[in-house]
Structure formats: C-alpha cells, structure tokens
C-alpha cells in the first residue's frame, strides 16, 4: 500500500516536472534579445533605410541627396511599375493554382505505404536539391526552339517561340516554378497527411467510405493548416519571384515579364538608380504584407484552431 502510494506520488511529481513553465521561472526578455537584435539589425533597420532612400536620388557613387517625392510620383506614372504589380499577382495566383493540387496529391500519395514509394518519392524530390539558377538554365536549354523539346514536338509548341510572347513567357515561368517548388510543398503535405490519425480512416472504412471519399472528407479537411502554411509560402515566394525571371526571360520580351522584384533589381543594380529601386522595394513590402495578412485573416490561421477535431 505504502509502496503503491509512493510510486503514484513519484509519477505525479514527474508529470509535474515535465509540464513546462510550472515551478521554474518563465524565460524573460533576455532570451528574446539575440533574435530581436538580429531582427532589428537585419530586417527593421534596412527597411527604414530603404524607406529613407526612396526619397533620395542616389547613383551609389556620391552621397544620396533628397529629392522629395520625385521617385514616388515617377513610380505611379510608370506603366512598367503598374504592369509589374499585375504580373507579380498573376504569377503568384498561377503558382498557387497549379502547385497546390499537384503537391497535395503527391504528398498524400507519398505519405502512404505503397511499394516503391520511397524510391519514387526520392526521385520526385530531386528538383528540391537543385538551385533555382541550375533549374532555370536547365529549362532554358530544354526549351530552345531549334535544338530543345519544341524543335522535336512542333505539333505541341508551334514555332517554339515560347519566350517571344507574354503568354508564352508567363506559361514557362509558371511551369518552371511548378517543377521546382512542387516537391517542397509535397513534402509539407506528406508530413501533414502522416499526422492524420488512422482511427479516422478506420471509422470511415467501417462506415463504407472508399478511398476517394476518405480523401475528400478526412484527408483534405485535416490538411487545412498545412494548406494554409503552404499557400502562404507560395504567395510570399510568388511575390518575390526573381531568379527564374533573371535567367529565363530577363523581364522580356520587352518588359512583358518584368515583375516587381526584377524591376527593383533592374532600377537599383543595372540602372544604378537606388532611389527608384528603393521605392519599388517599399511597394513590394507593403503589398506582400497586406496580402499575407489577408491570407492569415481569411484562413483563420491566426486563431490556430486544431485540426484534430472529433477525436
């Protein structure tokens, strides 16, 4: 009897000790200092500097001098800027729309226990290991109109002038982005799908639900939070698309694929007009923040509701 009460007492104590924040002092502000300092130094401070620079004219050689709202008035009259915001949004939406379904299917499939799954998954995830530069150079060569795929498949590609038109260039950018980023999101969904409790599937199977119904009524709803995470990553990635544009289209033909991030680079580091580049950067920051906030608000992600409902 006494031995039993001793072990329960011990167990209770152990339980207590494991619970965080009880009995020990809560971590103070000091713990957050390193991260906060880094954030201030490398995120907030540059942001403030960019905001200041956007009101100056600076060629990067002599010291910047204030020119009031000149960069901003120029920016709002600039058709390339307006177009670049639209292009950025179009590429972002196309990215989400094309990548989400494929990565969900691939991720859920990769979460299963089928034969050869591990080997095939490893192959599917290869693009994840390649740098964006390598991916872009690879596709640039594959899509060469004379010696690449279009030259072999004229019935599909016509004259192969994929990068010579706006629609073609956007299609190529979307496709290459999809090829490159689907594996990352599939990996997220694989993790999410693995975390779905098996009892839900067992209960559904007893009720007579087939694979398809199980997918739509259990897997998809349970993946909601994963989906939001993935979509936010896609949106942020889409809004800052740069490397593929730099290598595949250089914003061309003409300015047909000059997205905001590329336009910022062009103004700053090719035209040496850092004031104008900073103004574009600031617009990009504001637009991206607003969109991220909207996604978080609409999806209810901020409330962090559990998906483990009904267990």
């Amino acid at each position, binding site marked *: 009897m006494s031995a039993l009460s001793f072990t329960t007492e011990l167990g209770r104590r152990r339980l207590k000790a494991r619970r965080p924040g009880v009995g*020990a*002092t809560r971590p*103070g502000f*000091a*713990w957050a*200092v*390193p991260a906060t*300092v880094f954030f201030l*130094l490398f995120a907030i401070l540059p942001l403030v500097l960019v905001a200041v620079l956007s009101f100056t004219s600076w*060629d*990067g*050689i*002599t010291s910047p001098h204030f020119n009031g709202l000149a960069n901003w008035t120029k920016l709002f009259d600039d058709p390339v800027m307006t177009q670049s915001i639209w292009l950025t949004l179009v590429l972002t939406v196309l990215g989400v729309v094309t990548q989400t379904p494929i990565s969900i299917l691939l991720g859920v499939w990769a979460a299963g226990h089928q034969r050869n799954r591990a080997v095939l998954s490893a192959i599917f995830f290869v693009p994840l290991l390649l740098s964006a530069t390598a991916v872009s*150079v690879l596709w*640039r*060569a594959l*899509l*060469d*109109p*004379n*010696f690449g795929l*279009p030259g072999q498949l004229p019935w599909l590609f016509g*004259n*192969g*002038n*994929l*990068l*010579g038109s706006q629609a*073609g260039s956007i299609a190529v950018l979307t496709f290459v982005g999809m090829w490159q980023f689907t594996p990352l999101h599939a990996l997220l969904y694989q993790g999410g799908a693995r975390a779905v409790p098996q009892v839900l599937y067992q209960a559904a199977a007893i009720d007579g639900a087939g694979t398809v119904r199980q997918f739509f009524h259990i897997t998809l709803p349970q993946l909601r939070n994963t989906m939001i995470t993935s979509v936010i990553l896609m949106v942020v990635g889409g809004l800052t698309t740069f490397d593929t544009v730099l290598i595949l*289209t*250089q914003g*061309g*033909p*003409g*300015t047909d694929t000059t997205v905001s991030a590329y336009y910022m680079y*062009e103004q700053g*580091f*090719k*035209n*040496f*007009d850092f004031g104008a580049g900073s103004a574009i950067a600031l617009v990009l920051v504001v637009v991206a923040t607003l969109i991220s906030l909207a996604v978080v608000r609409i999806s209810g992600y901020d409330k962090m509701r559990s998906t483990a409902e009904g267990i």
Partner: protein
Amino acid sequence: MGSLRVSVRNRASRNRFAALAATTALVVGLTAACGSGGGSGSASADSGTIHVLVYGDAGNTVEKQIVDTFNKTSKVKAVLDTIPGADYQSKLNTIINTPQAPDIFFNWGGGSIAPYVKDNLLLPLDSMIAKDPGLKNNFLPSVFNTAVIDGHSYGVPMRGTQPVLLFDNKQVLASAGLSAPQTWDDLINDVKVLKAKGLTPIALGGGDQWPTQMWFEYVYDRVAGPGLFEKALAGDKSAWSSADSVKALGMLKQLIDAGAFGSNFDSVKFTDGGSPALLAKGKSAFELMGSWEYSTQQSGNPDFAKNDLGYSAFPSVSGGKGDPNDVVGNTNNFYSVLKKTQHPDAVAAFLKLMYSDEFVKAQLGIGNLPTTTNTANFLATSASPAYSQFQFNLVKAAPSFQLSWDQAYPPAATTTIHTAVQEFFDGKIDTNGFIAQMQSLSNS
C-alpha cells in the same frame, strides 16, 4: 527546499546575464566588423603600392604577367585585384568612391566611365600624354577615342578589340549558290533565296537583346554615318526623328518582314549557345556577332570553325552617308586612373607597358587582338593569323569605330535601349514607338 529555489533563481539570473553578455558581444562584434571594413585593403593609403583592378576571367594570366614585369623594376609595387564574373560594373560602382577603390581599373570606355568623370573621380591623362606622347600615338586612333570624354583622355587601351562582323556558314552559302553579301541588296536577295530553301537565313540570339542591337548599330552607321548617333549621345534628341533614322528603321523592318530572322528569335540566346549552334549546324547561313564568335565556335564546334566558318565586313548601303569601312562593336577595354592615386608617376610607368612588345605578344597568345601600332609586327604569332590579320586591317582602316550603343550611353540607359530594340524586332512598337523610346534616354 528553500536553498534549492535560491539556486534555481541564481541559475536563471546567471543565464540571463550570460545571454545579455553574449548579445552585447555579438552586437559589439558586428559593429566592429562594419567599422573595420574601411581600414583594411585601403589602396592608395598604403605607401608604395598601386592597386590594379581587373575583370576576373581567363585573360588575367596576361595582366598577372605584366604586373610581375612592372614589379621587377619599379619601387612602387603593383597589386593585381580581380572581381570575378559578369557583375564587374555593379561591384566597381560600389567601391569606386570608397577607401577600397583601386588606383587603376579595367573598363569599357565611353558610358562605362562617364558617370565617374561626371563625379570628378577620374584623372585626365592629358598631362601624362604630354610627357610621353607614346601613350596616345602607339594606339589606333579610332580605338583610343572611345575613352576620350569632353576632349580629355581618360583611358589607355588594354586587352583586345572586338569588332562586330558578319559571320557565315560557307557550306550553306555554297550549296545555295550564294556568297557573302557586299551590299544591302545582296543581303536581302540572299535572305530570300535561303528562306525559299526552308532555312532561317540569319541566326539571332534575340533573348539576349544586345545581339539585336548590333543590327541597329550597323544599319544606322551605314545609312547616316557615325554623326547621327554621336549627336543623339550628346543630347540632341532630334537625331532620332531625323529622316536618316526613319530610313534606317525602314530598312531593318524590310529585313525582318522578309523573314530574315525567322519567327522565334526571341526564344534563342547567344549566351547559352542557341544561335551559334544554328550557324554551325547549317540551319542558318549568317550571324552578326562580335569577334568572339570565332572562339565560341572553336570551343563548341571545332570542325566547323576550322573548315566552314566565314566572316566578312557588314554590307554597304547604296546612297548611305556612312563609310562602308566603318565598324561597330567593343573598341577595346581600357585602364583608367583614379584622381586620388598617390603614385601618378608609377601609374604612368605601368600604363606604358600597354604598348610593349611583351604585352602584345602575350595578348595575341591568348587570342586577344591588341590595338597598338606594333601589333602588326606580331600578327603571324597569333593563334589564328588569317583571322587576326583580317580584323586588324578592318579596325585600322576604319574611319569610325562606334562603341556599342549600350556601352556608349551610361549604364542607366541600357535597359531602355535593350527593350526598344527587342520590341521593334517583335513588332510590338513601330518606328515612332522606337524613336520615342530612344528620345526618352538621358545622356548623363
């Protein structure tokens, strides 16, 4: 129990102290790192050295050799620094007005140094030339003039000249019964014949944009002479809307509409080997390209370069004001000098080596074609003597050697020029659209 609690609290406060200390150390370290950047590597503050900054690539072997030669006799020692890769201009821009700036730096003349001249950072070489006229007389004038701004010399040629030539595939031309075109009408005729045979007459890497620009440079020069562009560059925007400008654009349009470049040139690039392959594999008969086409073909398609790669000057235009001997392209690379250098005499001695026999032989040895007057003596030692001889004669005889438009204008104009030439070839803008875009350029 009480003592335990005390020790826990102690540990917590000790940890907090440690974290604070670590953070403080980090912040101090970072600021220190930022601060100390200015001290090290400061070029002109060091006594007894001059820093020479060069675009980092395979050509550095010669620059290294020349620096070694210089250091053998000079008390002031030269140090060679390189910035690797294509971002040379942006990186140069970030250090040119800092203590890390070099004494002597590599550039493309023209617009690539114009902003620095405007900001009063560069040393005019006129007094050096007055002391040693050889610094000017030993170079071909059409090349030397590229680094003359507002009447003052700011650069001495180094490395090699890269004129734009019309390359052809001899086999394709022979099988179509054609020869390299002498006149614009020949070219139009060749295009028609080749098109009828199902070929893309002229390979064009439109995706890179600057190969398209080469067509504008030559046609404008042949139609209007070099004066039109010089006028425009000097700020007279009416040059772009002149009758000659409209005529040149009309001729280009005629060529595009004749199907000379096919329909998918904007998806082809020179830089990834797309357009050189069209020429080498006989799918096209011509390519207008800088003299580096030769070495590109030599490394990519050695058999083609040896047997079937032909080259000629750009065709003449009947009734045009331009001299058919004019060339366009990259005149040369230059060494310019920063005003704040502590050792102008050592710099002058270093620049003299740019016309030495040793320099010329070394450059020819790695496939570059220097533009010194003594180059002619050594052409036979070049890797491909016939090709070097052709280029040298072309450049020497040229009354005008127009620097590429995107390098004649300051870097800020590049994007606008590239967009305009591409959209004109696409048909997205017409003659008036092109003129308006070029008139929007600022020359300073």
